[in-house]
C-alpha cells in the first residue's frame, strides 16, 4: 500500500502543527508564493522577523481538504502558532498592523509599516484550488 489514506494525511498535518511552533500552510513557498494572499501573509511574518515553517498545499489536493477539515477554515493560507489556529490572510494582516502578531510570535513589535495591499482583483498566479 503506497497510497496514503486521508486520515494519514490528516495525522501528518496534525503532527506538523504540533512539532512547529509557527507553521504556515500556503500556496507555493515563502520564496515563491503562488497566490497573493499567501504572499501577503508571508510578508507579514517576515516583517515580524519570527522564524516559521511553511507547507505548500498545492502538490496534493488532499492536503487542503484535510487541513480545512481539521481547522474548520475554508481558505488558504492558514497560520498556526503553538498548535493553535490563528487565522488566514486577513486576520494575520490585521494582527500585524495592531502589533498582536509580534506579540503572538514572541517577537519585538515591528515598526508599524503597512503590508502592501494587493488589489482585490489581482489574480493569484498559477494553480487555482479546484476543491469545492
Amino acid at each position: 500500500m503506497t497510497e496514503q489514506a486521508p486520515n494519514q494525511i490528516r495525522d501528518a498535518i496534525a503532527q506538523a502543527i504540533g512539532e512547529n511552533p509557527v507553521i504556515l500552510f500556503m500556496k507555493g513557498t515563502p520564496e515563491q508564493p503562488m497566490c497573493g494572499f499567501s504572499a501577503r501573509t508571508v510578508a507579514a511574518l517576515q516583517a515580524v522577523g519570527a522564524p516559521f515553517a511553511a507547507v505548500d498545499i498545492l502538490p496534493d489536493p488532499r492536503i487542503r481538504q484535510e487541513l480545512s477539515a481539521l481547522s474548520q477554515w475554508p481558505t488558504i493560507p492558514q497560520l498556526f502558532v503553538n498548535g493553535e489556529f490563528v487565522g488566514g490572510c486577513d486576520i494575520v494582516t490585521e494582527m500585524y498592523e495592531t502589533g498582536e502578531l509580534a506579540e503572538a510570535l514572541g517577537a519585538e513589535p515591528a515598526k508599524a509599516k503597512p503590508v502592501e495591499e494587493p488589489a482585490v482583483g489581482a489574480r493569484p498566479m498559477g494553480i487555482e484550488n479546484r476543491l469545492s
Partner: protein
Amino acid sequence: MPTADDVKARIEARIPGATADVQSPDNVHFSARVVAEAFSGLSRIQQHRLVYAAFEGELGGEIHALQLKTETP
C-alpha cells in the same frame, strides 16, 4: 457567477442585523466589510467563520477569495 450584490445578500441573510459592504472587480474575488452586532464577544476567527458559513463549499471554488473585515457597530 455570484455578483457583489449576491454576496452581500447572502451575508446579510445569514447574519441577522448585519450590514455588508461588498466589492468585486470580477465576480470571483470579493472584498467585504461586515458590521454586525452578532460579532460582539467573538474572536476574529469566530467572526470570520460566521461569515464563511454563508458560503459553505463555495469559498475557494466559485468564490475564489473573500477578503474579510469584520466589525461590531
